[in-house]
């Protein structure tokens, strides 16, 4: 499902570049090892500005979801209704990402708790790819 293209900035560039290379990374604090997503200029936990990108396994679980019928986002309106799921990462369940769950039927049986795997999708407005998630059958 073609999405708006994220426009990387200084803090997010590394994450989006990794998506273009087919890798999933999360910002990790060099001072206290705290993981955070979205990335921030400072560590949420200790305030340090020294961080690295840590690669994740690319597996996760469906934490929960809702089904959008009337979005304010014009780029998505022609695809309604669609799922918006919250994914928690296998390596760090406190880290959450969003997904349309490509391949999963839009009904009341979205498998909350099911294992998902990352894929990379093209977007509408640029060459930027984004991380998406598919249920592992």
């Amino acid at each position: 499902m073609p999405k708006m293209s994220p426009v990387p900035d200084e803090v997010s560039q590394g994450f989006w570049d990794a998506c273009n290379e087919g890798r999933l990374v999360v910002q990790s604090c060099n001072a206290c090892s705290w993981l955070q997503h979205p990335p921030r200029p400072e560590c949420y936990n200790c305030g340090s500005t020294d961080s690295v990108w840590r690669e994740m396994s690319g597996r996760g679980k469906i934490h929960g979801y809702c089904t959008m019928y009337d979005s304010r986002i014009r780029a998505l309106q022609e695809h309604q209704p669609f799922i918006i799921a919250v994914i928690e990462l296998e390596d760090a369940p406190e880290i959450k990402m969003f997904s349309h769950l490509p391949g999963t039927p839009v009904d009341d049986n979205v498998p909350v708790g099911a294992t998902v795997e990352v894929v990379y999708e093209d977007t509408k407005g640029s060459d930027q790819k984004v991380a998406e998630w598919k249920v592992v059958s």
Partner: protein
Amino acid sequence: MASTEWFQTDRYRAKEGLGVWEHKGKAAIAGLGNSPTTRRWDGDLSTSLGAWAILAAERALDDAGITKDEIDGVVSCPQGMGDEWGAERGYFAAPYDTEDGLSGVSAHWLVKNMGLENVKTTYHAPGCMSTALVAGAEVVGSGEAKTILVIRGTGNMPGRYHQTPGDTVGGPQQWTNPWGWQLIPQIAFGFDQYCRKYGSNHDRMAPFVLNQRRNGSMFPEGFYYQNRPDDLNLTVDDYLASRWICKPMNINDCDLPIQTAGAFLITTGERARQMKKKPVYILNHVQQRGVVRSSLETLDETEEFSLSIAKKCYEGSGLTASEVDVFNPYDGFTLFTQSFLEGFGWHGVKHGEAHDFYGDDIRVEGPHPFSSSGGNNGNGRTRWWGFYDSVQQLRGEAGARQVQIKAETAIAGAFTPQISDWLVLGTSPD
């Protein structure tokens, strides 16, 4: 008076552990005023937000029985909730030659155009009438001004409300908009999480939503009462058949954007006792600005935020949960209101019990008159009906909505568990 500063952020009572508010009971709400309501602005300058803010302020003065000469301060939430009118549609002759007065009303706009010649103190508060009210409470409580008007207009322009165009997105929304994650999915997801955790479902919201409409049918200032009384006869079947906005949120879980303006007159307790109406004292004011761990709010975070709000409201006022008579938490999306009910523990409701409570007797005539205002679901989106009703209830002036239980204390607030501002009110200053 050319411009207005934002109210100082360190004067909001946002932290736990601040103890009883040092100005508890020193300020009181002594006047209420509201303009008429309509669905959208029709372009007629006599029903602009500015004109209606003046009308609401005049009504608040009349309600208090004083003249505008006595007003020495104005606090406004200067932004409306709707979109801007926009330069492309063309502005009008002064004072309508900018957005000010059309899509929002600044404090200095009101001062100038209402001719408030004795105003020395003005402030702006962002986002919500609730924020302006807590700022106003502090302004009067601290003695910075004596008798002030707190105003907001909430506008709704012609055309679709709040659309997000474009094929690219930067800033914080780069993490959310590609998937369509905005406030509405957050609320719908949060409600679904709540139902999974506590074994409930969306159908069990019907008694609450129907009761909000029923209370709206007894609120003459409200939008539905004035414009669409038939919508207040919503049935369970209607509710369950309503179109989905973001399942499990349907259209009737959302408050309707409207055009209206409201005003609250706050003065010292001493002066309030000489005015026309029974004073409603401000026992505490509270701010909540929760920080989330990620780009969404988890159910654990929502519950933590609501508990923190309640703790701060109780701590600063010296009240306990069982001493709160009238309770009007925000319901603009009905799907988060249970979090406030459970966080405050009003009428003993614990986590996971709100939907059972909704199925009990929550009518204003009954023993648990929850959200006696009918809220924004029952009256249209302003975010101030809960405060308005709380004052009327404590005065004994709520008419057909008057609760039959004791009404000596009240708590009202808006907007979400993460971001909201609250007042604790009482018929006595102590």
